[in-house]
């Protein structure tokens, strides 16, 4: 133990014999570690935020359906399947937010053209709590909660059928009872998704208006729910099937995983670059002390002792780097928690379109605990790899004549 304590003291002092150089090595490792942690936290928080935004507009982390929903029969009667009762929906332990919707494919006619679109009826008050659809209305207003026969259209759709705010459009579709559903709606707002197909294929109106148009009883609707199931098991609900978003949206799931893996890859590349610089500096540091190592060997220090002293020296460097790197990574993450990053700064103010959905996320960073030991392990591994060659060179040459 005494010998080990002496070895640690010797290695620690050697580490600081050229403080400027050690500081530069330490700084490169600390900045590397801090940035890697920030990057991983950003990736994790960003992915979560993007998926949350995406899923909120779409169908939640899980889609809960009637057990027969995907059977052929059910698909034919889109708005005529059983839904979860409001009693179950109100169970906050299961769902954070819910809203009702109905959807139907319809034709929409303006002054110059008729196009096929998907018309959705929204429970306005609850919708605004769950989705951020109102933020996408850039011209005019969002649907009023107590209004009737109002409609909002995608900006591109309005241009193509040549209608403006305040004008009327005709909507024609097939009602639930098989009759022809048709009515006039007043355009109150235009949705700007930043381009893409959605802008010419979506239209929204009030829930009651849509139900009335399609001759649907008030109890027929979809339940759109929002709940974070990431840390919880799948809910067990009688008579319903639960499907995760990964199953429903395999392409999206692959994209998110790809981003995660790619972030790790970037981190490893950063480490390789930092390690190459570190290896070169360690080589210089060790070779400068070559004569000293030779004297140690003459006095009686074995190669293994010299190896141990170098290992401890680099281990101390790594430990200091990890402590300060972890602190820097945490601090940067915390800073971006208080001041979330608006992704629009990376996209020239344009929204991000994923899977046909428009996202304008502001990413609030959260620290992911496991990164704070995974990254240090990676740093230790790279430092160990970094010092192998300089150490072999020095130890090989430590046995020398007077």
């Amino acid at each position, binding site marked *: 133990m*005494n*010998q080990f304590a*002496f*070895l640690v*003291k*010797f290695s620690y*002092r*050697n580490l600081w*014999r050229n403080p400027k150089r050690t500081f530069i090595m330490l700084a490169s490792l600390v900045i590397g570690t801090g940035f890697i942690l920030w990057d991983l936290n950003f990736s994790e928080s960003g992915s979560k935020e993007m998926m949350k935004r995406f899923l909120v507009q779409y169908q939640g982390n899980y889609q809960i359906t009637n057990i027969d929903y995907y059977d052929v029969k059910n698909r034919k009667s889109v708005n005529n399947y059983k839904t979860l009762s409001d009693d179950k929906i109100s169970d906050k332990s299961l769902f954070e937010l819910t809203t009702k919707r109905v959807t139907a494919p319809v034709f929409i006619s303006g002054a110059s053209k008729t196009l096929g679109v998907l018309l959705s009826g929204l429970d306005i008050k609850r919708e605004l709590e769950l989705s951020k659809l109102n933020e996408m209305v850039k011209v005019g207003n969002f649907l009023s909660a107590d209004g009737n026969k109002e409609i909002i259209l995608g900006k591109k759709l309005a241009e193509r059928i040549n209608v403006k705010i305040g004008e009327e459009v005709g909507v024609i579709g097939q009602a639930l009872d098989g009759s022809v559903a048709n009515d006039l709606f007043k355009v109150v707002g235009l949705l700007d998704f930043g381009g893409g197909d959605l802008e010419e294929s979506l239209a929204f109106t009030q829930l009651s208006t849509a139900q009335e148009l399609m001759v649907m009883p008030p109890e027929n609707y979809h339940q759109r729910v929002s709940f974070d199931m990431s840390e919880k098991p799948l809910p067990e609900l009688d008579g319903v099937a639960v499907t995760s978003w990964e199953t429903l949206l395999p392409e999206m799931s692959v994209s998110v995983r790809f981003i995660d893996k790619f972030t790790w890859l970037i981190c490893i590349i950063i480490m390789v670059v930092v390690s190459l610089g570190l290896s070169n500096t360690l080589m210089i540091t060790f070779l400068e002390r070559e*004569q*000293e190592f030779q*004297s*140690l*060997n*003459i*006095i*009686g*220090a*074995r*190669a293994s*002792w010299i190896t141990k002293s170098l290992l401890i020296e680099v281990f101390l460097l790594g430990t200091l780097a990890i402590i300060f790197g972890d602190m820097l990574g945490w601090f940067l993450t915390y800073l971006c928690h208080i001041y979330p990053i608006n992704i629009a700064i990376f996209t020239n103010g344009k929204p991000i379109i994923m899977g046909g959905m428009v996202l304008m996320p502001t990413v609030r960073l959260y620290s992911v605990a496991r990164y704070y030991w995974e990254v240090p392990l990676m740093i230790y591994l790279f430092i160990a790899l970094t010092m192998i060659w300089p150490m072999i060179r020095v130890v090989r040459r430590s*046995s*020398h*004549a*007077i």
Partner: protein
Amino acid sequence: MQFEMMNVSKVYQASEENKVYGAKDINLKIESGDFSALVGPSGSGKTTLLNLIAGLILPTSGKLSHGGKDITFCSLEERTQHRLDYMGFIFQDYQLLPVLTAAENIEFPLQLKNLEQKEIKERVEWALKQVGLESMGHRFPRQLSGGQQQRVSIARAIATKPQLILADEPTANLDSKTAQDIIDLFKKLNQDFKLTFVFSTHDQRLIDQVRNVYYIKDAQIEKRINHA
């Protein structure tokens, strides 16, 4: 314990035709308590002899023994351990570790020997006292003069209580007065503790005060003089 070299030669061979002798048919006995010097011009083979004695290089032919034990072809690790167990070294440029204090430099080989902390402390204090630096143990080498650094180097060499101390040009970097002080210290240590010294030197003052002088020329011992 006697150290002996029997018909030892060391050949540095750059090519088949180009052989250079670092040592040639050397026969040398170093008895316990000897106070000897290897003397000769640069390139004569003094340092090669020291290296052979220390086991830092292996002979091309001949035999080395220590206390009757053949140590000619020990492994690298065994030779390192042998130096630690039985030898002390003093260098021309002191070779102190700059990150350790004087006391810690002396402690260094004792730590390598894995001695008890109490014994280490006692030996460090004893060694510092012998070289007259009792009050300077806490100083780093950069805070000491050349003569003081060489004293620390001597203290480091004697702290392990070695059977043989090899010193390579120990006074070469010192001014005249300091060099004489160091020589006096060597003599005192030799007389008081029967420590065995072998010097490689050009310093006439040291040559005049050793008991045995081995004149080396062209890698051979040309002449031996016993001042006793």
